């Protein structure tokens, strides 16, 4: 198991290294001179020189990368060109709403998706299965910004159950915060939930026709216990894999959801900075999100060891 963990961490480090390279090169991928693109046509030579120096663009490329990477490792992500503020502070300020909504939506999609899939599998061919399968197909097809607008219209404007938009931190007012977070989380997590439900259904169907399930039934164990104790832990492994793969979806979806619900999170920051051509902020946000996704995937991989002893004892 230790070797398995070391191996996965090693792989994660390599992935992060490659990602950092892409983030860094972003500034050079903008067509033309990045300084001119940022400053516009009316820039004075003095401004150009200063920005070039500030961005370090006068130095050779490998040197630029190393000094940038060194900064990132020490937590220095540079200074925003537009806001003139430290990027790290900017991100830290914008991070909590995104993390809050992201985690809530991830939890909802697992906690609701997996049992729905399991129920569909156990009741295979019945009306419950039909209902769950059809609605998960439907959920995957709905664009989430549309669903968000629909939700606001129905639950906030018409019924008045939930606030229209915005975000309140749980440290400020815990219950109010949940009311703000629930709708964007559901909207963001719905397609993930549907995908997990389908994966759980097919993987459960695969498991319940295995020989060891037949063994368990022949021992005289109740069907419910067979499903819970013998089948679920086996069926969950492919679901965990898919859940890990869905994380970037949630991160990517947050850009749109924060716009629709007017939440000041990282997603919005990225979007605004792209429009403002605030490359340093975009770089910073991307590297932070990349680290988050890679770390989450690492956790997913390590959880295999918990579910599957064959990995643990290899």
């Amino acid at each position, binding site marked *: 198991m230790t*070797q398995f963990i*070391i*191996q996965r961490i*090693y792989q994660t480090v390599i992935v992060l290294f490659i990602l950092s390279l892409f983030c860094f090169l972003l500034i050079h991928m903008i067509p033309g001179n990045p300084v001119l693109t940022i400053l516009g046509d009316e820039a004075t030579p003095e401004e150009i020189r200063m920005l070039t120096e500030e961005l370090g663009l006068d130095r050779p490329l490998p040197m630029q990368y190393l000094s940038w990477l060194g900064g990132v490792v020490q937590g220095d992500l540079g200074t925003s060109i537009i806001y003139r503020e430290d990027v790290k502070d900017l991100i830290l300020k914008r991070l909590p709403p995104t993390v809050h909504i992201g985690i809530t939506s991830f939890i909802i999609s697992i906690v609701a998706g997996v049992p729905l899939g399991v129920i569909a599998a156990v009741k295979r061919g019945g009306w419950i299965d039909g209902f769950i399968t059809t609605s998960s197909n439907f959920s995957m097809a709905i664009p989430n910004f549309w669903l968000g607008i629909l939700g606001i219209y129905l639950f906030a404007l018409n019924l008045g159950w939930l606030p229209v938009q915005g975000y309140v931190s749980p440290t400020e007012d815990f219950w109010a915060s949940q009311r703000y977070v629930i709708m964007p989380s559901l909207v963001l997590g719905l397609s993930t939930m549907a995908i997990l439900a389908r994966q759980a259904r097919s993987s459960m169907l695969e498991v319940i*026709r*295995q*020989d*060891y399930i*037949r*063994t*368990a*039934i*022949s*021992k*005289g*164990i*109740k*069907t419910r216990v067979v499903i819970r*104790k*013998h089948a679920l*832990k*086996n069926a969950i492994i492919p679901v965990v894999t898919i859940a890990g793969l869905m994380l970037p979806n949630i991160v990517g979806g947050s850009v749109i959801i924060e716009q629709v619900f007017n939440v000041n999170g990282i997603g919005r920051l990225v979007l605004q900075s792209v429009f403002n051509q605030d490359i340093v902020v975009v770089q910073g946000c991307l590297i932070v999100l990349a680290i988050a996704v890679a770390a989450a995937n690492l956790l997913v991989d390590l959880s295999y060891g918990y*579910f*599957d*002893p*064959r990995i643990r*004892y290899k």
Partner: protein
Amino acid sequence: MEHLLDVKNLSTEFNIDGTHLKAVDDVSYHIDKGEIVSFVGESGCGKSVTHMSGLQLIPTPPGKITGGEVIYKGIDLLKLKPDGEEIRKIRGGEIGFIFQEPMTSLNPVLTIGEQIMESIILHLKVGRAEARRRTIDMLKKVGIPDAESRIDDYPHQFSGGMRQRLMIAMVLSVNPKIVIADEVTTALDVTTQAQILELLRDIVKSMDTSLILVTHNLGVVARYAERIYVMYAGTVVETGTTKEIFNNPRHPYTIGLMNAVPRLDDPKDKKLVPVEGLPPNLANKKDQCPFLPRCVFRTEECHSSPAPSLNEVREGHAAACYVDVSKVQNNNIVEDEVASSMIVGEQEKPIINEPALPEENLLEVNHLKMYFPVTKSIFKRKVGEVKAVDDVSFYLKQGETLGLVGESGCGKSTVARAILRLYNPSEGEINFQGQDISKMRKKVLRPLRRNISMIFQDPFSSLDPRQTAESVVGEPLIVHNLVNNRNEYTQRVDELFRMVGLDPALKNRVPHEFSGGQRQRIGIARALASEPSLIVCDEAISALDVSIQAQIINLLESLKEQLNLSYLFIAHDLSVVRHISDRVAVMYLGRIVETADWETLYDNPKHPYTKALLGAVPIPDPFIEEEREHVVLKGEVPSPLNRPTGCSFHNRCPIATPECKTIDPSLSEIEDGHEVACINI
């Protein structure tokens, strides 16, 4: 007397895509306390479904029990709710089920202790601590070493034979009254099979539990069963005590089965008599004797009458047949049928004197070694080697068959693959037709490849499901440029089809439209296409049912005579190897431990491993089995990763001396052509 389990007129159907398959059709049987009863039959005869139906274990839908009674302790089990309290008490608690596949029948994510304790807690109503204590006792009883620490291990940490012991422990831990063992040793090696069956027999006898032994292996039946039910096409066709049935079989199918199986004590020239034809399709079952189309005893009466029911022919012996087989001169009929059914038989010449074998060897393998590196960590550091084949030498002449036997993991398939250069040998020479091909470059080797073909084990997965039979058989012709035009190609493919006894009209079908035996014929036709001089048969018949097995063995034998082929026949079934081989080599842990001509090896085995292997093979004759001494080899084949020092067999050997731990014996000739690797003979 009231029976412990009394099953009357049980019928089970499977409803698949609108067709009703009568998997079990009006089956009645009973089990008494403490007896060992065997259900014999080939795959698809309904022997497993019969027993699963009784406990309502068949999946519904598509399965449906359509009638009958299963009386246990005065209760009809079929009237109980499938997941209800009452049947669950009996299922597992009173009637235990051991399944065929030990590798997949245990839950991989739960410890074996948890899985056994679960049964004990459920049925014996004891606490966890007590359940754990009983589990450890039971593990010791089934021969798991270190039971106290191994109880917390997971199934993948045990070998196949050990897992079957765990299954036995799990089922027997709750003191059931009946144990159903469904093909429990089919997936295991012959020495492990003997260990498991001896263990099972001893335990059920000591606990006075009844054992139902479901199997296709007549030898196992003869050795262990007291009473037999022979099943065919979902019905019981014959029943009686084991001795009575083997002594005086009355149903043509039972007789057919017995003639189709090669035995260790057969005369060598015995031609196996296959049961020709195929089992009937259970979907369109008519009210007629199901065996009629394959029966050699059939009369007019059989055609016009409904399906016969079991009639007592003697006390306690019943057969479902209209013909009194014992009064018919059956030998003539059988011979006639064989002659007319042998499609390849037309060109076959009677065997007069065997032609003398040529001087030079067709294939000569010298000191072949095949090592696989074992790597560790992310840097793929080499930490060791699996010595799959370790210094193996043998030769094969044109027209000769060399049998290579050994248990799984002994390296016999690796030898085959190295000869075909599917692997690149680590060391040694493979001289084929005078050229060393072991290090030959791929390009140089390619034209030689047409001279060696291979027949694979599994006829179901070794054929491309999307290729037609014609293109499977014809591909080698095109690859090796053996035909000049379309016309020649078609002619040759048709010829190959006829050679293996297939109708060329079927050549546009895809593999799944053929039966297992027919697919293996396609595999043989493919192997013959390039007119090879050597064919490597890697377990070529072990996936087939016994009646079909005999057809394929006969086909291989007559093809060999016709075409002067050489076979390297790799198998684990010693009776089959004896039947087909001129010379035999026995492998253990990557080495040949004994080699001789077939007669010497089987009549006068010298190496203790060969002796143990032969002793473990049950002979399908209860009278002989009664007399035979059963020496069960202890332990399991060690991993080639940590091969024991000295003689690698010393830790299991009954005649090992202290020197065996240090001296690594090499093959030495004890008489002409008989070589043995043992220092104590």
